[in-house]
């Protein structure tokens, strides 16, 4: 049976790779240090596989077949899919067997994830792994939640998915140590009249509720207020799923800063028993 040895969450944005200099060096170093600390914590937990909860930014999936939930089960994942992303092209290792197991178990648990055996991962997965320095070493299982094009899965459903994911992971017989990284959000907005908005009040309240450990409260707040925080904030679904998987473990906020010049509220945190 596997133990979930680490559960982290962090914002992502392509800007952190493409235009790191859009913010002051001191801010940037502070943020990059936060990601490095997260990577060090993940590495120190020695996971044999890493579940990455993220979203596909309309690269692998289009409106002809747009999954609400998708679980990757490939032995490897080329990345990045964006030709314009400033990141080295390479192939990340995947744990196909764990992906297959999670698919089956989650289908038995009354979820309806799509299967993918071929994904070219985008900045949502790559950027945080890159900054954390753990992009090459740990076999991945990408789990992609639709946060990019309505109709979107409900906040409640994403939390419940995380609960079921945690249960499935803990019964996985083939590994002893697995970790979860949720990436996305927090507040930001893209390609609308509000582009560039960062809603610091939303972010701080969202992180406060996570720290309070009140799952129902986080779901309610997310559902009722996400539209005040921008279309990119829909990505808090990954944080809700991670909270579900954490099974009551306490959330620790390690970092937060509103970074309007990166168009995003940058949060980093961790669930620890």
């Amino acid at each position, binding site marked *: 049976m596997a133990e979930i040895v680490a559960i982290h969450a962090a914002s992502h944005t392509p800007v952190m790779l493409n235009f790191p200099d859009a913010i002051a060096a001191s801010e940037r170093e502070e943020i990059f240090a936060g990601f490095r600390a997260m990577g060090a914590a993940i590495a120190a937990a020695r996971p044999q596989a890493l579940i990455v909860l993220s979203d596909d*930014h*309309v690269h692998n999936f*289009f409106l002809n077949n747009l999954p609400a939930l998708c679980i990757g089960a490939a032995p490897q994942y080329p990345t990045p899919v964006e030709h*314009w992303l400033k990141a080295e092209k390479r192939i990340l290792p995947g744990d196909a067997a764990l992906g297959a197991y999670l698919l089956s178990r989650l289908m038995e648990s009354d979820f309806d994830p799509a299967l993918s055996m071929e994904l070219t991962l985008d900045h949502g997965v790559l950027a945080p792994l890159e900054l954390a320095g753990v992009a090459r070493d740990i076999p991945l299982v990408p789990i992609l939640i639709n946060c*990019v094009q309505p*109709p979107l899965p409900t906040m409640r459903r994403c939390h419940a998915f995380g609960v079921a994911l945690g249960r499935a992971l803990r019964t996985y017989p083939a590994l002893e140590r697995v970790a979860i990284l949720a990436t996305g959000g927090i507040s930001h907005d893209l390609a*609308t*009249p*509000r582009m560039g908005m960062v809603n610091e009040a939303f972010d701080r309240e969202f992180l406060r509720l996570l720290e309070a450990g009140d799952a129902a409260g986080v779901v309610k707040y997310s559902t009722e207020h996400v539209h005040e925080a921008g*279309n990119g904030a829909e990505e808090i679904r990954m944080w809700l799923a991670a909270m579900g998987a954490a099974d009551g473990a306490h959330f620790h906020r390690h970092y937060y800063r509103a970074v309007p010049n990166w168009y995003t509220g940058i949060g980093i945190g961790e669930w620890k028993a």
Partner: protein
Amino acid sequence: MSNWLQNMPTAEAYGLNKVLFELHHKPDDLAAYLGDKEAYLDRFALTGRARAAIRDNDVAALYLAGANPYLLRAHCIGIKIPEPVSVGALKALAGKN
């Protein structure tokens, strides 16, 4: 207030988004588009409004017609619309809709 203009893409938005998706995800499509916009757009079923919005790089019109924000953003980067132009066109809509 909503994060989305459309809770479900319209048929018009589907066609428009399909152009943006194919243009930036199929090898050769961007070159074909830049080489002859009208001929490239003939490949798709588009409303007149959607076709004009794409052809004229009218970022505000693309947004209003239901372009997915990620596809719209990638399109602006991919065809090199300067950031102040694309973001400016969107911000000029604030309060209008």
